[in-house]
């Protein structure tokens, strides 16, 4: 005998499924992100007088001791200062180098389009640490080791492909009609650049600068090789707490400090930056 089955209206099952799946995935990703960060936050707030360990799930007593400790007794403020200085130099240098090239690739009909794409992919062809240590040798020969300029030059190398990609997309997206109209109304080449191109690529330029600045703030391999020991950046100081002297509490604090630029860039990307820049940023061809 066949069991009688209640047939749910199809739409209801579908609705349930189409709710459950994103809800499930959403929960997974929430956990994916919130749990690690949450743990870091908790660890940074542990009170040294009430050590947190098994079997407690949560620390019993919170205090800002470790935050104060890290900021007072470690070089984190110096590291932040260094990172900011290097990032600023990097961003300015990167923009200056990328603008003319992006204009040329984006607007000028140049042969050898493939070569350009290959050159842009070159930095990815060498392992990061390999480039770091051999470039580092060169820089120490040139006396650039342990200097802001040295680190900045290295950072520019890492961030240029990204800036170039974003700016090229920006330049390409200026409609030719508008440039023609400007020329038609009497604008000489420099006028066209100043009056039409520059205002229209400013959004892309801002996006590029933000990504470059953040990229420089977070770059590790080159800062480590070239900067150490004289100049500590935030990533290198974090590294020192992750190695032999694993200081979980200090590491938590520095980690959270390092995440601040990430949060900023994430908010900015969601609000201001068009997806084509993001696509360029993620290296989609």
């Amino acid at each position: 005998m066949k069991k009688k089955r209640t047939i749910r209206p199809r739409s209801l099952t579908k609705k349930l499924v189409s709710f459950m799946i994103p809800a499930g995935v959403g929960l997974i990703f929430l956990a994916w992100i919130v749990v690690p960060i949450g743990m870091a936050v908790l660890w940074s707030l542990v009170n040294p007088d009430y050590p947190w360990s098994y079997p407690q799930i949560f620390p019993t007593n919170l205090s800002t001791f470790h935050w104060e400790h890290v900021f007072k007794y470690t070089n984190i403020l110096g590291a932040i200062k260094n990172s900011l200085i290097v990032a600023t130099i990097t961003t300015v240098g990167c923009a200056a180098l990328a603008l003319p090239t992006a204009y040329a690739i984006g607007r000028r009909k140049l042969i050898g389009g493939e070569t350009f794409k290959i050159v842009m992919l070159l930095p990815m062809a060498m392992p990061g640490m390999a480039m770091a240590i051999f470039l580092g040798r060169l820089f120490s020969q040139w006396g650039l080791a342990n200097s802001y300029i040295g680190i900045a030059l290295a950072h520019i190398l890492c961030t240029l492909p990204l800036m170039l990609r974003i700016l090229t997309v920006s330049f390409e997206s200026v409609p030719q009609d508008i440039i023609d109209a400007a020329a038609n109304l009497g604008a000489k080449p420099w006028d066209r650049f100043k009056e039409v191109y520059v205002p229209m690529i400013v959004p892309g330029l801002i996006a590029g600068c933000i990504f470059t600045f953040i990229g420089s703030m977070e770059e590790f391999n080159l800062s480590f090789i070239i900067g150490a020991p004289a100049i500590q950046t935030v990533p290198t100081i974090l590294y020192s707490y992750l190695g032999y002297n694993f200081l979980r509490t200090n590491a938590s604090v520095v980690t959270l400090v390092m995440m601040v630029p990430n949060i900023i860039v994430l908010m900015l990307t969601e609000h201001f930056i068009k997806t084509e820049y993001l696509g360029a940023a993620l290296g989609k061809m």
Partner: protein
Amino acid sequence: MSVRLTVSDVKLSYGDFQALKGVSFDIEPGQFVTLLGPSGCGKTTLLRCIAGFLEPQSGEIRFDGCIMNDVPPHKRNTAMCFQSYALFPHKTIYENIRFGLRMHKVPVTEHDELIQKAMDMVGLTGLGNRKPYELSGGQQQRVALARCVVVRPNLLLFDEPLSNLDAKLREKVRVEIRELQRELGITAIYVTHDQAEALAISDTIIAMNQGCIEQIAAPRTIYDKSANRFVADFIGTANLLRSSFREKDICNVVVDTDIGSFTALDDNYTKLDDISVSWRPEDMIPVLEGQDIPRGCNVVSGIVRNSVYMGDRLDIFMNCQEHVFRASVARDYVIPEGSSIRFAVPFAKTRIVQG
């Protein structure tokens, strides 16, 4: 201020593709001339050569006799109205219009007056502070127009400026463009594929096809006295029939076709071979049962295939042996499908065309 434009044997190729195959014409100052033709005929290419965005491989373009071939666009003092309007999105309407004045180094004290006048001329008074995206298509079109006229160019160039507007607006704006041009007296070159538009507003029409000029004539002439098959067919609709020459007397030409002979009233007949006889649907007079054929007319008879009510007229498609002819009659007629019908086409409205 307004110049005479002379184009001499201009040729331009993109690789193997010949966009312009030797184009020549001469335009008097103050004329409104339309470059008319189907997509790919070269009319936009020609316009861009005149503006300076493209360089022809051979031939000359002269403004008032001066060769312009090597002069870059920003030095030619032409003004172009683009199909996409090409307004500067980051500038206000006021600044858009002001752009040309700044580039031409017009004294700053004169700017405001000139801009206000231009905005009044196109009906945009008071909208100076808006940005392009805040305006409708028609309004953006007018900004583009104002931007062009404010610099008092030698030549006004229009690249299908109305194709993005709806039909009613198009009819309205094209008349405004024409009147503005007439008022300012600037030579204008207007590119379009819409033959109704061309007929409505031009002093002269240059019909182009596949990189060549097919005919240069005033609207009436190009419509009633088409030079060849292409022009007859492209401008308006035409019934065309291949024919062969039979004889000619003082005012008539008689030709043979596979459905009989046709007589055309033709004053300047010179071609002998590769000819067609052509007549317009609206010139076909229905001859009802029992009526006599009017004098001085050709007869075309056949079976009605279908009749299409167009609102202002009735279009009748009829089979005549293996041909299908089209006639336009008054909308009151009742002509059932399948019935046999005769039409009279006056000699005066019958043309012999090349091709």
